[in-house]
């Protein structure tokens, strides 16, 4: 996955690059708007991550130029500005997502993956599986090792999210937003309790644990020692 990161702040740029390399991407880091603009216009990337506030050419202008040139590479904007107007302006110009600084890296990663998946238009499969865990989405049925799991609707939605994005660390805010439609950073431990309960139903009776806590970051569903993921 080729990634263009345009970020003028040294430390942020470095850690973004390192983070994406380690997550299996192939990022190109560009430290000013002019070069970023040139690269975005001339080379093919799968995703562009743009800082809005650049000293020379600002990120919004790059998005605008891209879209005017009919280049549809997904763009994710990073900005310290957090008002509805700022977001709306960015999105109206043709950006695909908007993340406010400071952000957690795993949140950026999750959103980047979402944008990339959107590009692929993978059909949402009805049957999700990880090891012996099987989810039949349309029938709202979940089973582990052939044994039916008794899940509440929200637990089912949570498990579906974890399965659909198996292998990714899902931050708590993303889970709250996707499963409960709670679109703000809540300071409760609802997600932790919900995941714990789900885990007790899914993993407790089995030696192979599927739902994992990634400390300080979130949760992921992963089949251990499975390199195919």
């Amino acid at each position, binding site marked *: 996955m080729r990634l263009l990161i345009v970020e003028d702040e040294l430390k942020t740029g470095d850690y973004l690059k390192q983070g994406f390399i380690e997550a299996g991407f192939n990022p190109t880091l560009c430290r000013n708007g002019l070069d970023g603009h040139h690269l975005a216009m001339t080379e093919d990337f799968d995703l562009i991550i743009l800082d809005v506030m650049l000293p020379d050419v600002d990120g919004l202008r790059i998005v605008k130029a891209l879209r005017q040139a009919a280049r549809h590479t997904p763009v994710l904007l990073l900005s310290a500005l957090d008002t509805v107007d700022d977001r709306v302006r960015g999105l109206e110009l043709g950006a695909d997502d908007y993340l406010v600084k400071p952000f957690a890296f795993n949140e950026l990663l999750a959103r980047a993956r979402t944008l990339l998946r959107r590009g692929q238009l993978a059909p949402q499969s009805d049957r999700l599986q990880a090891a012996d865990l099987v989810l039949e989405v349309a029938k709202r049925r979940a089973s582990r090792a052939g044994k039916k799991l008794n899940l509440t609707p929200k637990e089912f939605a949570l498990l579906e999210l974890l399965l659909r994005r198996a292998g990714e660390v899902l931050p708590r805010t993303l889970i709250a937003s996707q499963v409960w439609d709670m679109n703000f*950073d809540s300071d409760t*431990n609802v997600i932790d309790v919900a995941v714990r309960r789900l885990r007790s139903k899914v993993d407790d009776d089995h030696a192979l644990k599927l739902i994992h806590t990634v400390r*300080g970051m979130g949760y992921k569903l992963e089949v251990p020692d499975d390199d195919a993921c």
Partner: protein
Amino acid sequence: MTTPAEQQTSTPTRPLSMATRVLLFVALAVLLCAALLATMLQNSIEAHFSEQDAGELQAVAHSVLHTLQDPTLGPQQHHASLHQVLTGHHQTYYLVLDVNEKPALSADGADLTPLFNLTRAVEQITPADLVSWQQAEHTYRGAILQGPNGIRIAVAMEMEFHLHYLHLLRWTLWLTIAGAVALILLAAWFGVRQGLLPLRRLSSDIRQISAENLHLRLEPSQVPVELAELVQSFNQMIENLQQGFARLSEFSADIAHELRTPLSNLITQTQVSLSKERTLDEYRELLYSNLEEQERLARMVSDMLWLAKTEHGLHKLQLEPVALASLCQQLFEFFEVIADEKNVQLHYEGPALTINADKLMLQRALSNLLSNAIRHAAASSTVQIKVLPSIAHVEIRVINQGLIIAAEHLPRLFERFYRADPSRQRHSEGAGLGLAMVKSIVELHGAQISACSVLKNGLEPNQAQTEFVLHWPQ
């Protein structure tokens, strides 16, 4: 900051000074009145003169007629007799024309023939019949009386005397008016100056007040009654400023305190860990622990930023009708799991109702209230949201049962970082900003929030019912 150039362009039309405006109005009014008065006076005097002249001329004309008709007098005696008639009348002249329009008799000194071209003969001389004309550098005024047998008698008098008087009168009048206007303007200017004196004194008093002595107030009883209201508003403004300053410094102290502890933990922990070689697992543990603390700090900072933005009106509300029941249902679904952990029931009571609100903000506010209510609810109790509509308001109550909150804490619950129970200073959930956020959301919507906590019959001993009540404008 504006530069002098900007100030010049931005204030091209500074209003006239108050003194100038008052003086202009006074001058205009006085001038109008005086002019009116002077004109009336002149007219009346002129009318009086005309009347007097008309009466005199009428008398003279009749005397002339009388003399002419006196059968005892011959034509030669007429002249002498008429001379006598005129002796009492200063500079009065006559001319008698007979039926054939021939001058029959006339007084010496002035030729009145032009009068016959100017007017017609009348039976009775009234002020309206008088005409004036100029002849040989003299101004005359006269009329013609129709006598019997076709004779006409022209009578006239020289007007120089009147004119001179009127001229003098006009001058005197206008000089007096000018003097009076000047005097009145001077008095008005002085009055305005005196009137503005309390303002100047007030302004010098206000100049004494600065950030260091915001406790100073102006004394409303020591200014004229017109300024009392201004002084009160000003005092109110200083009061607000003082409170704002106090809150700000309190807030800074709070932030310093709230941030110092976790920061010093982070630093100490990191320093200790780095003081000697550790295993990989220990390093990992350190990083995780740091990460958790840092996330807490980041959340606190972003919450504080959010609050600051709200208080500065930087959040634009996107109002829409929000169905309360379904919003609460959604929140219940979210909090269900933690309520379950404590065996707490969540219950909604109220009619199907929509209120005007920014949905995300309302969700956030109610979520904070609910999370707070569940956190402090007694095990196996019920947390309720009750919606009670009234005419002007919708009342939304979030009710739980738990330990009583002492009355002195209630109004301060909504302050940032305020915790009713000092022993639970930190490491209880949240940064102590949740209720402050609720309050600012509520106030942003023009709504109000209050809290009460009372012991109630029918509850477990030592259990109180705590209610957070939102008054949402309908």
